[in-house]
Each structure stands twice: as C-alpha cells, then as structure tokens.
C-alpha cells in the first residue's frame, strides 16, 4: 500500500517536469534567437520604439485592469448578494462577453462609432446634428481600446469574484452587520478584502490576455509591445530583435505573475471552503432593484449584445445566410477539434502539475508549475515561431525513422496533421487550467490532507476522493475558458495549420485583412455561438444554491 500511495505523486511530478520542458521549448528557442546579435535594430528600438511601446502597454494594462476590476467585482457583488427581478436571466448573461474575441469587438465598435457609421448616422437623423461627428468618442485611441478590451474581458474578474462572493462565509458579514456596519461598509471592509485572492487571479488573466492581444490594439492604432514585436520582425526583418522584445515581454509577465502572488499574500482562502452556511441574498425592490439590474445589464449589453446584433445584422444584410458557404462547417469542425484536443491535453497536464505541487510544495515542483504558466507570456505568433524549430526537429527525426524502416509516412507528421497547432494552443493557454486548479487547491484546507493521512489514505485515494470532487468547479471553469480561448486564437493557427485547413478565426481574418470583416460575420457568429454553450454551462455549474432570506 505504501508504495502505491507514493505512486500518484511521483507520476504527477514526472508529468509536471515534462510539461515544464514542453512549455519551455519555444521559450528557449526564442531566447536563443534573441541571443543572436541584433545591434543594428537595438539602437532604434531603445530610442524610438520602446518608450512609446512601454508607455502604451502600461497605460492599456492599467486601464483595462481598472475597468475590469470595477465592472467585474461590482457586478459579481451585486448579483451574488442581492435578489432582484431579472437576476436569473443576468446570471447566465454576465459571462457571455467571453464568447467575443477582442479583435471582433474592436472591429464592431470601430465600425459603429466611425465617422458615417451607424451611431453617427442615427444621431444625424434623430437629432439633426450636422456636427455630431466632433462629439463622438474616437474609438481609435487608448481610451477606446481600454473600453473595447475591458468590456469583453471583465468576465474573467466577474467569474472569479463571484465564485468567492457566493461562498464567503456569512458569519463575518453578519458579525459586521451586528456591529452596525451598513451594506457598503460590509462590501469595502469585509467582502472585498476577503475576495482579494480571487480578484488577483481574475485581473492577472485579464492583464495577460491584454498583453497578448494584437488584433484589437493594432486595429485601434495602439502601439503596444506586442504590436512592436510584429513590426520589428516583419518590417525590420529582425527576428532576433523581435525575440529580444519578446524576452522583455516575458519579464513583464513574470512581474505581473509576481504582482498576482503579492495580491494573494496572506490569503486565508480557507474561510470559504469551511464555511458552514452561505449568506442569504438581500432582496431589492423599487429603484434599487432597477439600479442593480442596470448595473449588471449594461456590461452585457456593451460586451455581448451589441456585437452579436451588429454581426447578425451584417450577416443578414449581406445575404450570408441565404448564400451559406458550406465550407464554414469544415472550418467549424477544425476549430472544434483543435480546441477540444488542446483543452483535454492542457487539463491533464495542469492536473499533474498542480497535484505534484500539492503533494510536495518544494521549489522544484513550484518551478515546474510556474513554468507551465509561462506560455501566456508570449503572443501566439511568437510561440508558433518558437515551436517551429523543436517541432520540425521531431518531424525530421520521425521522417528519418520512417525512411530507415521503409514506412511511407507524410513528410511532416506533427505539422501536417495539425498536432503542431494543438501543441501551440496547449502551451499558450496552459496557464488557464494551471492557475484555476491551483486556486482551487488553495481553497482546499491542508487540514483535509492531514485528516486523510491520519486515517491512512494514500495519495491516490486523496486524489480520487478529496481533490478531484472538490476541484470539479475549478476544472470545469478551466476547461470552458480554455476551450473558448482556443476557438478565438488566431496568429499561431495562421502560421502552424496544415495545408487546406481553415478555422473559423482564420477565415474571419481572411475577410478582415481585406478590410471587409463584415463578410466574415457568419463565421464570427459561429465562434460566438460555439462559445455561448460552454459559457452558459460554466454559469450553471458555478451557481451555489441559496434562496432569498
């Protein structure tokens, strides 16, 4: 029994280390590219590119972070602690902006608010303002980018905040109320500080997504570090310079992760899991109910309903339904297959990595776990670039073996079969399941492990009977967020996909790059439709039953 007991931990450690190596491969390959001299471009980069890029990136991160925190935490609190008409509907609407890729939101809002766009034309009809133009906000600006990106990414904060708010032990809030604290005081002094770890996780995810975004920032004319990596590589033809910028970005991400950990310092998450009774929701009526409804409905309206309706309007107006392109089903199949495979692979690797750390939280396993999250640091295209060398090395080895053994295999097995795309997604998004499952582990008190050991339960038993059941919400959440992320991924898919393969996102891109993204409206709607199911499912599973008082 003893030998078997330690078996789970050892297997997990082996997988954790293998995972770290897998994720490190493109990073190492990028770092080795960065080590090549790029002196001819560094002068320019330091003098002209970096100051603007760092400033824009910092402002964008701070702006989007603040907006998502405000919207995400605010709505999560309203909806977790209050009862009002429409709450049931909002519960499953709130996370839906996750289904909208940032680049799509940028295309839609730039279109809506552009000069001569729908908003402008409508204003000109209803209020005969010849001059409405000058008063419309310019979406192609930093505030515009913060608005667009923030309102599709807030669900990351909302979901993690709500998961915490709804299980936060009632005693603290009730004690505070007994001592005379009002609802706001309870929110500021009790609920919010207790939710800090969850908020830190949510905001960190938002920050990493923002850093990786290229479509939206480029389209709205914001020169972030990511955009600079692309121009350095493509216009200066300096892969080394681009790789060096990518390394700088890696350092920034390491900083963000450190900040997230700092945000969760002294986190006493055990309050939540041990909580014997969950706080009842306060019923609201009259004006307060309306305000609560409006506060929650507005972000959904901006982040989801408007883009959805605009795309539907375009799809119908352009006759895309009537002249349905059957190729779209093929694109949908590829999108789903890649996303599903990558999600399954990432879930298993993430479980192994976090389990290894749970059983033995030593520096080695901590390092493996942190490394597994590093993929989020690099834009999809940089990962794809970094992957080319190692993946193709494996491919030529396989093809050499095939030739030697006389087997007839296609030339490039990993790239030709699309496995390279799946690997790229896995590396890119592994941080999602690792982060969420780690957070899930953090909320399982260590006392449980002690008690289990006292009654002689081995690691395998603890895993099956304690961890996995308790981790189910975290795992489901991770699977869904990752699946939807994969559906939306663009640059790595573009570069690594096999001959004759399109996904929904690459087909939208085909249209967008010709300046006619509206013709890709149907593919965009398919991505959204495919993402809605999982997101709603996520909401259902994350709801803790609790009736009104």
């Amino acid at each position, binding site marked *: 029994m003893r030998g078997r007991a330690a078996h789970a931990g050892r297997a997990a450690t082996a997988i954790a280390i293998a995972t770290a190596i897998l994720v490190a491969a493109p990073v190492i390959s990028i770092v080795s590219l960065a080590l090549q001299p790029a002196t001819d471009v560094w002068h320019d980069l330091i003098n*002209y*590119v970096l100051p*603007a890029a760092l400033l824009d990136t910092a402002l964008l991160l701070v702006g989007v972070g603040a907006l998502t925190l405000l919207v995400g935490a605010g709505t999560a609190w309203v909806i977790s602690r209050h009862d009002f008409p429409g709450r049931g509907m909002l519960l499953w609407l709130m996370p839906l902006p996750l289904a909208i890729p940032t680049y799509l939101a940028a295309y839609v809002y730039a279109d809506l608010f*552009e000069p001569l766009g729908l908003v*402008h034309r409508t204003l000109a009809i209803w209020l005969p303002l010849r001059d409405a133009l000058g008063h419309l906000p310019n979406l192609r600006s930093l505030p515009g980018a913060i608005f667009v990106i923030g309102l599709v990414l807030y669900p990351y904060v909302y979901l993690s905040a709500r998961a915490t708010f709804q299980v936060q032990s009632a005693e603290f809030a009730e004690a505070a109320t007994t001592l005379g604290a009002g609802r706001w005081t309870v929110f500021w002094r009790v609920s919010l500080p207790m939710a800090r770890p969850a908020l830190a996780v949510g905001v960190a995810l938002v920050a990493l997504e923002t850093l990786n975004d290229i479509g939206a920032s480029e389209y709205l004319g914001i020169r972030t570090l990511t955009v600079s990596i692309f121009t350095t590589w493509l216009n200066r033809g300096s892969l080394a310079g681009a790789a060096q910028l990518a390394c700088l970005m890696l350092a920034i991400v390491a900083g963000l992760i450190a900040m997230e950990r700092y945000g969760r310092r002294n986190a006493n998450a055990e309050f939540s899991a041990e909580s014997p009774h969950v706080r009842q929701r306060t019923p609201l009526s009259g004006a307060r109910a309306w305000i609560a409804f409006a506060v929650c409905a507005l972000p959904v309206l901006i982040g989801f309903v408007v883009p959805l309706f605009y795309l539907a309007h375009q799809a119908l107006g352009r006759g895309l339904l009537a002249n349905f392109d059957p190729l779209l089903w093929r694109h949908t199949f590829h999108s789903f297959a890649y996303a599903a495979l990558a999600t399954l692979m990432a*879930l298993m690797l993430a479980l192994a990595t976090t389990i290894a750390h749970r059983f033995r939280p030593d520096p080695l396993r901590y390092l493996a776990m942190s490394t597994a999250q590093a993929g989020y640091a690099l834009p999809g295209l940089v990962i794809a670039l970094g992957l080319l060398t190692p993946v193709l090395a494996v491919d030529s080895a396989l093809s050499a073996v095939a030739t030697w053994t006389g087997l007839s295999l296609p030339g490039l097995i990993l790239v030709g*079969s699309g496995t390279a795309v799946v690997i790229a997604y896995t590396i890119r998004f592994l941080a999602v399941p690792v982060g969420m499952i780690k957070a899930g582990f953090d909320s399982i008190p260590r006392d449980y492990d002690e008690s289990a050991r006292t009654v002689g339960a081995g690691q395998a038993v603890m895993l099956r009977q304690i961890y996995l059941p308790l981790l189910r919400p975290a795992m489901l959440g991770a699977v869904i967020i990752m699946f939807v992320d994969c559906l939306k991924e663009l640059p790595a898919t*573009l570069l690594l996909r096999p001959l*004759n393969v399109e996904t929904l996102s690459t087909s939208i891109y085909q249209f967008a790059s010709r*300046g006619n993204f509206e013709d890709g409206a149907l593919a965009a709607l398919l991505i959204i439709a495919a993402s809605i199911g999982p997101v709603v499912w996520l909401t259902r599973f994350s709801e803790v039953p609790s009736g009104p008082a």
Partner: protein
Amino acid sequence: MINLRVLAASAAVLSLTLSFASKAAANGEVNVYTYRETKLIQPLFDAFSKDTGIKVNVVSASSGLEQRMKAEGANSPADVLLTVDIGRIDEAVQAGVTQPIKSEVVDKVVPAQYRDPDGYWAGISMRARVIYASKDRVKQDKITYEELADPKWKGKICIRSGQHIYNNALFAAYTAKHGEAKAEEWLRGVKANLAQKPSGGDREAARDVAAGKCDIGIGNTYYWALMMNNDPEKKPWAEATRVILPTFEGGGTHVNLSGVLLAKHAPNKANGIKLIEWLVSEQAQQMYADQNYEYPVRSGVPIDSTIAGYGKLAPDPLPIAKIAANRKAAASLVDKVGFDN
C-alpha cells in the same frame, strides 16, 4: 466526474480524423504557401486545376511563411510561395528558401522590370499607392508624393499606420530616391499634415475624406474600385472622392508587386513551375485584372475600366530591389519621427 479514459479515447479519435482530413497524396498536386487571401485567389486555383488536372493545396497566412519554410527545411511541402508585396519577396529570397524559376514562358511574358534578374521571383500583379482626394475640397488634378509634406495640407491628410507594408514600401521608395536625411524631413512634414493618428486601413482613409475629417487619404488603387463596384455600403465613400495618381518629382507612380517564388525544396517542382507559368497566362492575368482590379504584369492584357478611369499609370522605374533594400531604413525612420504616435 470527468473520466480520463473517455477523454483519452476521444482525443485519439479526433487526432486520427484530423490527420486523415489533412493527408494528401503525392501526385498531381501542387502546394502553395500564400500571403494572398484564399478567397481572392481560389478562383484562379480552381481554373488552374480545371485546366491541368493538378490539385492545389493551400496554406495562407499574414506573416511568417518564410520562417516556416526555413524551419521545415528539406521536408517542407511548399512548392510555390505567393506574396502580396515587395517586402515579402525580398524576405523570402534573403531567407534562402527559394530557387530560381527556370522558365522561358515567364521570361518571355513578364517584362524584365517585374522579375528578378537571377530568376528568384516574378511579379504577377501590380497596384499603385495613390490619393483619394475629396471631390469638393481638392481642386488640383496633379500632385507629387513630395508635396504631401507641404504645409498647405496641414491637418488634411489621412493615412494608415506608417509601419504597414504598403506605406513601408512607399517610404522605402522615397528613401531610395532622396536619401535618408531628406526622407526623414519629408516624413516629419507628412506627419505634421496628418488630420489624425495613423490608423485603420485604406478604405477608412476614403471614409474619413467622405466624412470631412480630411481632404486627402492615401490608399491602394484596387480598394477604391472594390468599394465603388462591389460594396454598396461603402460606395458612398468612394463616390465622395476621386483617385489621383501621384508621381515623384522626377515622374513615376509608386507601384507594389504581388510576386511568385519557387520553393527551394519544392517536392512537386514541375507542377510548381506549371502553376507559375499559368499565373502569368493571359487567362489568369485577365482574372487578376477583372476580379481584383489590379494591373496585370503581362503586357497586352486589358485593365479594368474603373482602374483605367484613374488615368494612365506610369509606374516608377526604380528597380524593385532598390525599394526592398531601403525597407528597414524606412521602418526605422517611421519610428524615429514618431509617425504613428
């Protein structure tokens, strides 16, 4: 609970399906890597397949195809690379992933100006970088690129990012002609004349002129024709403007080339050459001209009437190689003057 065995089984089934879906036979095919959007060239590939019975397999991307070919090395399935601009032609040749196209047909029908002396690439279509001028507010019919820096245009010019490949090529041509110092001064002047921060695409330049935000927008020839003929929603943008073919002071309008290259390790080399020769055939060149409103490289192929309406194009005689050689300098100048800031 999630059952790991079910997961593993479904993963295996999916992988198998995927690898079968993308498995390709070795004969009667040609593999194309392209920066051109598939929608645009698929009709050409279909016509080629119909003519020759050769199946065309495609990967299209916006960037990084040379790097992919380089990494794939001798195992690369790529036969032919299609680019949309001069820069990418140059990148591919520099990356050493191509081989000379040895074809008498190509040498005969593509004018020397639009192909590499060593045969590493051939142009297949052209477009000019022109001005969409407000019908109401711009009176002059002629304009030079140099003039764009003239203070009389202060606050009146709209343009997309200075780092976009189309602007990069134009600025590189300017740099090749006038030297870096003059080009820098010119870029500062153009920046000072901008009505707004560079953003959007070429269509947006026309739209902003139509909306009165600026008087002249910079764009490619075919966008205007596409808006005018193929997009009822955007037709008013084109209608509010007219296209002026600008020239450099010494004469010549800046044109960019879509090019075709033969992969160094092309597994279906003969079919690759067949495709290249077909792309410069009269039929294909006519399709390029009619469907995408581009200038064919093959002489004698009539251009579309919308494009013809811009006036007679006199392309800048500056060799393409000179433009390519100045790309990095141009990109650097754009950053130096903070063009996009």
